[in-house]
């Protein structure tokens, strides 16, 4: 009986992961979550910003690289703070809106987002759709296209 109650408690506490960047489409994704779920009880949101670090080849010195990362982190923290406020204003309790900044040089941003989804046990991942040209998607890939193929055991919301 105790086990069942624990399971129920977990399923009631839905955890949504929103992966954001400074784009307008990411902003739309946050606004969508605010509009759709804000004010309802039983939801936790983690806002995730991944800083795609270019790697040592792109910097003259290690100091230059560290400064780049520091600036990018600062921008991400500001952005996440702004989005966090949007969600709180939409009715999420403050303690239910978390933020994460991750600095990495990933082979695939999708893989990294899904590893966070797995670690945080999120039932839903939300991303904005960037409307890339075919050429751009061909050369550099698309997170929204790939994530809907690669995700397992969760729902994906791709916000137009």
């Amino acid at each position, binding site marked *: 009986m105790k086990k069942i109650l624990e399971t129920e408690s977990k399923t009631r506490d839905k955890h949504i992961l929103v992966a954001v960047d400074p784009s307008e489409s990411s902003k739309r994704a946050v606004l969508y979550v605010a509009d759709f779920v804000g004010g309802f009880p039983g939801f936790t949101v983690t806002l995730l910003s991944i800083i795609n670090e270019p790697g040592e080849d792109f910097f003259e010195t290690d100091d230059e690289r560290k400064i780049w990362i520091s600036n990018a982190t600062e921008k991400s923290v500001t952005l996440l703070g702004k989005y966090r406020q949007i969600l709180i204003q939409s009715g999420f309790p403050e303690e239910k809106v978390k933020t994460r900044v991750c600095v990495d040089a990933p082979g695939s941003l999708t893989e990294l987002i899904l590893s966070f989804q797995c670690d945080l046990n999120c039932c839903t991942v939300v991303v904005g759709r960037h409307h890339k*040209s075919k050429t751009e998607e061909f050369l550099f890939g698309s997170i929204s296209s*790939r994530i809907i193929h690669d995700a397992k055991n969760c729902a994906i919301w791709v916000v137009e």
Partner: protein
Amino acid sequence: MNAINYTEQELLQMISLWIPPERIPRKVMIKDTANFFRVDYDDIVVLKGIPYFVRNNEREGRFGMEDEQKFWVKRAIDLLTGRVKILKWAFKERYKSRIGGLVFDCVRSPLKEARILKLVRGREDFVQGESTKDSAGNFLRILDYIRGKTLDETVQLKGKNHEDFFFNHYPGLLSEFIAIVKSIKFLHDNGEKHGDIRRDHLIKDSRTGIYRLIDFDYNYLHYENKFGYDLFGLGNVLIHITGRGDITTQDLLHNAPDKFSRLTEDDINIVFHNRVTNLKKIYPYIPESLNRILMHFSTSARVYYNNTMELLEDLGEVREGVLAS
């Protein structure tokens, strides 16, 4: 023994071992390695204790343009062994690359090439070499000079016409191309991009008969797919060898208007909109399975290759078919 202690007379004697008498200069100077612009023909530079007799700057030409002189890349003779080497000075460059209407950040990184040279040491499918620091502390690469033809030179020379080429020479070329994809897979498996896969960056070593990849100092800022641009480069090479050169819409319009009239927008390259990708429309004997691979690089593609493994799987099936026929 540090060669910098060699006298001019000793250096001239060493030069005379490897150079025809009429080419031996009257005097030579050992130049500092910090600035490649100050190192000229007939100069000596000393790297890792070895004196190198500098010859011409290397050149690179593409798309019918005049060969461009690369002042930071010089041919030289190792005066201890007589071997020809390529000395590649650090030429750091950060720039925007423009391709198919897209603009993206690129960098020329001596550090990347030095790292890959270490990774591929001893492999017959990559240029061999080592890196050292010039007197300013920048990475300078000492590369083996590869005697052989580039892939595009090889392709152009094979066959009387496309049909002869395709049935008699293509199966061998396809096997060689598959080996090239495996070489790139090795880089990707180790987290490295090539960065500039082009047919003139593939040289068939006349000593081994194996293609060697060269020039891996480019890097591009990737987004979702780290290796997408490399896969694009492989696709271009495959289309080039399958067509026995690039088939452009301009060529067809002038030389084969009937074939041109059969083309639609779906048949062209997803990035280079004047290149034909649907080669089966031009050469109907190209097997469907092969053409299907080519069409992954066309404007009509709905699915793209994400990695070299996917491409290799499809190529393997085609090779069996092509070799069996």
